């Protein structure tokens, strides 16, 4: 059994694809129409190239309710490892990204938390 696919629910798939590629810097892998939705996955240019993040439609009412509650409570739904969280913070702020937490030591890591504009808080973490 292999971990090859993980996902985040997004309120708008088109906007999510733009944000996750043009702003966060992931690379689109798949973008296939499936009925009224799309199957969209991105990979990291830093590798590994066969581990994908799916940007799934959060259309189910229960999914929306869950997503909004986590967001309101400041709870990140996903976390991405970075080499330099301070540099990422500066770079992303310049692109207009909204952060709810600036780089902050948190146990073994330094974290920052941002909004992905599609209903999720995302945590960036840099191991010590």
């Amino acid at each position, binding site marked *: 059994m*292999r971990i*090859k696919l993980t*996902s985040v629910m997004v*309120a*708008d798939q088109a*906007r999510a694809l733009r*944000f996750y590629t043009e702003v966060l810097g992931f690379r689109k892998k*798949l973008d*296939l129409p*499936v*009925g*009224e*939705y799309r*199957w969209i996955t991105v990979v990291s240019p830093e*590798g*590994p*190239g*066969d581990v994908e993040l*799916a940007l*799934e*439609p959060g*259309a*189910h*009412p229960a*999914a*929306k309710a869950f997503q*909004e509650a986590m*967001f*309101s409570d*400041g709870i990140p739904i996903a976390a991405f490892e970075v080499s330099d969280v301070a540099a990422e913070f500066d770079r992303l*702020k310049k692109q*207009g*990204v*909204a*952060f*709810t937490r*600036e780089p902050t030591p948190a146990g073994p890591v330094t974290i920052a938390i941002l*909004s992905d*504009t*599609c*209903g999720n808080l995302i945590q960036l973490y840099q191991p010590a």
Partner: protein
Amino acid sequence: MLLAPDVFRRLCRARDLLQRDPEPDASPSVADVARGAGISPYHFIRQFEAVFGLTPHRLRTRSRLDRARLLLAEGRLSVTDVCMEVGFSSLGSFSDLFARRVGEPPSSYRRRARSMVSVPGRAPRDLFPGCLSLMARLPPSAFRNSGEAAPGSL
């Protein structure tokens, strides 16, 4: 931008207000919501859009259209009743907006939803897919490079 916790809380509260079921003639204006948040409308809209990806106005419209989809899928209300229920006063502008954002007119969306197997009065499950059910409708080429990754491969 870096948002202080109280500002973030107020923006989330504003989002909740804008998405709440509209009371007749009592739907808050964007300016009202901004004032309630204690921020000037200019800054409010800027911060709101940075956080939610949409202006407050568009978020409210999206919320109304989402609710309309749910009500149309349940099949109990007519298109006209759904239009009024979600806070539009004009059937024409509701239908146009719905068709533009959803991709088909409300009448045809309702017909399609009712043709799906469902519990009467509940929205059909197929209308709200999760990740796994979408996967079943992909072509085989979508998983062409799967299998064991070669050691050290990108």
